[in-house]
């Protein structure tokens, strides 16, 4: 009678097989939710001087954005290795899409797809913080006002700062101008990077242009409401609130190679020619990688 012998299932593998951690059971999820609620009710969480509320953003805001990120837009992230795991850096991206969904998707991309789960601290226009609800939610999600003081403070504190130098010119441009970068403000982001020696990471976002194709701009309405533009898309305002559903375009977010600024020294921020040159360099890089990304995409929705 042959002796029974033990045959290892994975001969090369010395370590015992660890089964993948089962995703949280529903009891654990409910318990976590209850814990979160009781923490919220007693105010037992931390916020920072910019008004950033990591607890709320991790448990409510990011989970709300995730389905949009992975199911609706099916965002593909490229080049996260170009974003440093620690320390301050400035992510500069193109802005589009009528509503700043691109900013939120980039936040999710860096948090979920970067190994260090980095938090993107966005710089927003003053209009954002003027609005009730939107303003306070933006602060809780980690944004702050786009001004040099705040940008430099965040970068010195080792945070990853996100900026869209096109501003309203980019986000509110007509659909026929899609994927052409607008003027890059006054180069304030370059001076902030130079003063703090933080690298600039050019970031190209493809897909946001098609979510609300802006075919018209009701200037009179915009002026009445005090907004920089009032979009007219094929579905908005014709279909009312239904027009607010973004089209499910396919998104690609690519982070380019960092442009280092530390070697210029902080005094270089006073040299306008250098600031202009760097601004142009960043702008060109983003425009080039936008064209490359567009070639990778087989169609707008796939």
């Amino acid at each position, binding site marked *: 009678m042959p002796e029974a012998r033990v045959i290892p299932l994975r001969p090369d593998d010395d370590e015992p097989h660890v089964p993948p951690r089962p995703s949280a059971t529903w*009891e654990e999820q409910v318990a976590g939710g*209850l*814990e979160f609620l009781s923490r919220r*009710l007693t*105010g037992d969480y931390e916020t920072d*001087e910019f008004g950033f509320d990591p607890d709320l953003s991790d448990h409510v805001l990011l989970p709300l954005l995730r389905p949009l990120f992975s199911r609706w837009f099916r965002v593909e992230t490229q080049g996260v290795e170009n974003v440093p795991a620690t320390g301050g850096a400035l992510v500069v991206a193109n802005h589009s899409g009528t509503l700043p969904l691109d900013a939120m998707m980039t936040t999710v991309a860096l948090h979920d797809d970067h190994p260090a789960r980095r938090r993107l601290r966005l710089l927003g226009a003053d209009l954002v913080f003027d609005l*009730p*609800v939107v303003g306070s939610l933006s602060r*809780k999600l980690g944004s702050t006002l786009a*001004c040099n003081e705040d940008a430099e403070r965040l970068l010195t504190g080792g945070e990853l700062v996100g900026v869209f130098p096109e501003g309203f010119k980019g986000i509110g441009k007509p659909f026929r101008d899609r994927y052409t970068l607008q003027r890059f403000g006054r180069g304030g982001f370059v001076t902030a990077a130079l003063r703090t020696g933080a690298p600039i990471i050019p970031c190209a976002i493809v897909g946001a242009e098609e979510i609300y194709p802006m075919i018209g701009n009701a200037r009179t309405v915009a002026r009445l409401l005090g907004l920089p533009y009032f979009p007219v898309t094929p579905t908005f305002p014709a279909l009312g609130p239904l027009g607010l559903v973004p089209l499910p375009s396919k998104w690609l977010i690519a982070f380019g190679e960092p442009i280092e600024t530390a070697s210029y020294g902080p005094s270089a921020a006073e040299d306008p020619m250098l600031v202009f040159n760097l601004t142009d360099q960043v702008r060109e890089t983003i425009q080039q990688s936008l064209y490359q990304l567009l070639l990778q995409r087989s169609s707008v929705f796939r």
Partner: protein
Amino acid sequence: MPPAVVLVTGVSRWLGGALAAELARDRAIERVIGVDTVPPSPEMLRRLGRTEFVRADIRNPLIGKVIATASVDTVVHMNISSTPAGSGGRGPMKELNVIGTMQLLAACQRASSVRRFVLKSTSAVYGASSRDPAVFTEAMQARRVPSGGFARDSLDIEGYVRSFSRRRPDVGVAALRFTNFIGPRIDSVLTHFLRMPLVPTALGYDARVQMLHEDDALAVLSRATTGDFAGTVNVGGEGTLLLSQVIRRLGRLQVPLPSPALGSLGRLTRRFGFVDYSPEQMRFLNFGRVVDTTVLREEFGYTPRYSTEQALADYASTVAPVVPPEVVAGVASRAEDLVARVGATVGAVGERLRPAPPSPGLRAVRDA
């Protein structure tokens, strides 16, 4: 060199009285003179110790005589009113703040004995708006210059103090820009506001609040009086909290109201002398304000003992919460128990229904 004769204005208020009492305990100081328009409460009078109280109005030139005859060398100006409720309306408040300061400075300019001037100012001079940088340093100015109320008064006062220091360069001038005070004993705008069981706030806004514990405020004032720091310094605790968070930590209930409704509510409550919801206060409650305290720690040489969070916790020990945290914790843990029990039951039923898996040990062995 420690001061010999100190004059403290606004001594009948809590902070002024506490400072005078602290200075009076210091034997190196010869005389401490307290000035106010109203006499201090008997309890305060007992604490003041050897402080000499002079009932005088700083809006009156008489103050000059007091400074000259006592040959005061250090003046601490704290008689600045932050709410119209305390001084009988906005008119008298402005007069006390601005004209009072001008009179006091005029008297100090004449008195050659004066060597040091300490101003209790406020971080309200930075205003509060959506266009503010997140953190103000001493070198920054208000993005939207406050147009009225306490902040405007404080800006004017700081302006007069600056021109005084130009005219008397031999006088060391320290301007202390305090954030909001909080603590078990002090009576401040914020403590008034947070003592209400239901706290009305503006819907859709959440301010960042930085606070300073009363003990730290006292220590900074006392150090500024006896030390030699000259210049402007922000004084605030480490860290910030959101207004909603502050209300929750105190176990109060937040009632968010649309801004216009809050405005009319404010006018109503002000008439009855309750809480001040002036437009300026509302802007603060909407946007908040945070100051950088590097100068305080590195140049002034004081690190507050309480952070904003700890100062609030100390204050919280004196107010009874409407929603006690133990209740919240109790409900949460009971709900968790329930969920665990339901989960266990469901799990057990599931086990029964599922066919038993084959014993795993046999799988690793293969027939040879």
